[in-house]
């Protein structure tokens, strides 16, 4: 079902907002990881670990899910479709992958926050808050998704081509 132009703009605005918000939240999370890796002050490091949990739980996860859902709605409600163009399919797969990895990473974040909340935990043993690997790669994936959205590289799938053929035949009859 193709959306009306007004609804399409609303959905597009929502999708862009939550997606860019997701990128911002990842960058904020990376700033906290940087604190845990570089700061010499124990209180600062503990605070960073503690802050990671609400950022993950209340911004990263909801924004990721919202980005995925609005993206699917946008695809299904426009001529682009979800499986007709390679750039849309690639965006979908990358978003699903990033969301799944994020959801599995929440356990690590909670673990670190719980450990930091306990005053008797030796902060030095927590080794820099899980490191830059997950959020760094996550940010890279999100930037690739942005590139795909803006450049929309050409390429129609076989399914998309079949749909095009069907539409062409319908318009000829």
């Amino acid at each position: 079902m193709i959306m009306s132009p007004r609804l399409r703009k609303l959905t597009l605005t929502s999708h862009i907002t939550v997606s860019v918000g997701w990128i911002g939240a990842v960058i904020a999370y990376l700033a906290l990881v940087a604190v845990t890796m570089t700061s010499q002050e124990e209180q600062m490091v503990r605070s960073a670990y503690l802050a990671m949990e609400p950022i993950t739980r209340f911004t990263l996860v909801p924004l990721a899910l919202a980005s995925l859902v609005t993206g699917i709605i946008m695809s299904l409600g426009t001529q682009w479709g979800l499986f007709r163009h390679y750039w849309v399919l690639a965006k979908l797969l990358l978003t699903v992958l990033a969301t799944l990895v994020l959801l599995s990473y929440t356990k690590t974040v909670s673990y670190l926050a719980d450990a930091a909340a306990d005053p008797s935990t030796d902060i030095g043993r927590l080794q820099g808050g899980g490191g830059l690997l997950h959020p760094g790669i996550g940010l890279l994936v999100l930037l690739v998704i942005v590139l795909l959205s803006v450049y929309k590289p050409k390429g129609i799938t076989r399914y998309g081509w079949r749909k095009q053929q069907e539409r062409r035949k319908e318009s000829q009859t």
Partner: protein
Amino acid sequence: MSKSPNSNDEMKNRPPITPRWVKVAGIIVVILILLFFILKLTGIGSNHGPGRHIPEGDQTEQSVPVKQTLFVNLDHGITIDDGGHL
């Protein structure tokens, strides 16, 4: 030399070729998946649970209780740390 009159129709009726960027991306994905399985088989990245952030065998006097935590170790399956100490 002119083109055959049906060549344009034939082009439209032929399924599209996969673009180069899709092929390159697909190769990269396959390499990453292979790398992932190689790391798992060689045991380099085996412990992927939250516990990997604590050095192994590091027993200190100060220990803190942790909540029951689920560790997923792809080599040894799922284990539950039931009220152990760091």
